[in-house]
């Protein structure tokens, strides 16, 4: 399995009341979206792996937002920040912090809602479409300008997810990487760090998870 990772390292702050680490599947690469995204004029889209990898640096430091109806983006409700982005297989994984103290309603929705119901959505700017007349648009170049937490059924990609870490008030980097890697303001591009950031799920657990997601989707 090929893994490409990139991260912004933030200083450790033990017991930070406003940081709730999250992980999520933002999108799938080299796979067509389940539904046409907004702004794609009714076309489903494929974000190529190459385009996604090229755009990874633009994703770091971008905000995650939410809409009160959990069905789209609201760029004026930025409730968190993305600090890690990896492409693992066909999944573009992200991790970061939710501003849990400022946005308790988001934490409540994610923690108290039915597991597996929340997903993610990207926002792209200046996307280059290979052939505008194609039934499925292939995006060969783009810039990530943000992401949103929303109901999975409202996401253009079915297999996205959003999860908060079990324990709050802990630094994602401390949880995920050796302390010596944590440097304020530095950026890293490390395969090893990404491996600990996004540990591989056991195969059986993965299958169960996928099955649950498929069931939720079919509902």
């Amino acid at each position, binding site marked *: 399995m090929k893994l490409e990772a990139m991260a912004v390292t933030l200083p450790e702050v033990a017991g930070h009341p406003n940081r709730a680490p999250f992980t999520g599947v933002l*999108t799938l690469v080299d796979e067509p*979206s389940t*539904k*046409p*995204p*907004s*702004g*794609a004029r009714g076309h489903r*889209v494929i974000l190529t792996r190459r385009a996604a990898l090229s755009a990874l640096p633009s994703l770091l430091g971008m905000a995650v937002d939410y809409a009160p109806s959990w*069905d*789209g*983006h609201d760029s004026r409700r930025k409730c968190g920040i993305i600090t890690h982005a990896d492409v693992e297989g066909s999944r573009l994984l992200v991790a970061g912090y939710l501003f849990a103290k400022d946005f308790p309603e988001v934490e409540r929705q994610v923690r108290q809602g039915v597991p597996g119901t929340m997903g993610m*959505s*990207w*926002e*792209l*700017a*200046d*996307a*280059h*479409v*290979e*052939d*505008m*007349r194609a039934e499925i648009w292939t*995006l060969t170049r*783009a810039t990530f*300008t943000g992401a*949103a937490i*929303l109901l999975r059924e*409202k*996401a*253009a*990609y079915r297999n996205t997810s959003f999860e908060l870490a079990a324990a709050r008030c802990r630094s994602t980097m401390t949880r995920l990487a050796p302390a010596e890697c944590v440097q304020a303001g530095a950026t890293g591009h490390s395969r090893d760090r990404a491996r600990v950031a996004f540990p591989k799920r056991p195969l059986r657990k993965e299958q169960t998870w996928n099955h649950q997601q498929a069931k939720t989707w079919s509902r």
Partner: protein
Amino acid sequence: MESPTGENMVALTESMERMESRLEAAAALVERAATLLEERESSMSGEVRKIVAAVETSREAELQKKLDAAEQQIAELRAEIETKPEAQPETHAPSARRTVPASTAQFLAKQGLSTLESVEAGALDAALNGLSLEQRIAVKAQLLRAGVVS
């Protein structure tokens, strides 16, 4: 009289010249085809300013429909204007001048502004000096509407 070898040479030269001209024509065709293909490729690809990986909500779809209808209407109106250029001068005719309310005219007359054909800014400000700010604004707005000041 030319020798058989000389005739052959002439024929060969003519044949080569014909071939050269045909090759030139073919090269020109290939160049044209390449240009057309490049143009076609560039017209097929395109940039999209913003895409969001969330499904369009019904409200967005409704707004998009309204926007499309409005754009179509604008295009139709533009086309209509372009096809009737003689109608334009009528549309650009100056609006009729309105009259100043009697109370305002009386007040200005008391202040020495009996004629309202052309009022100087300085004289108007001096005439309105005794009024409150709101009243000054109201009078000036009336004069503006009447076309006395601009």
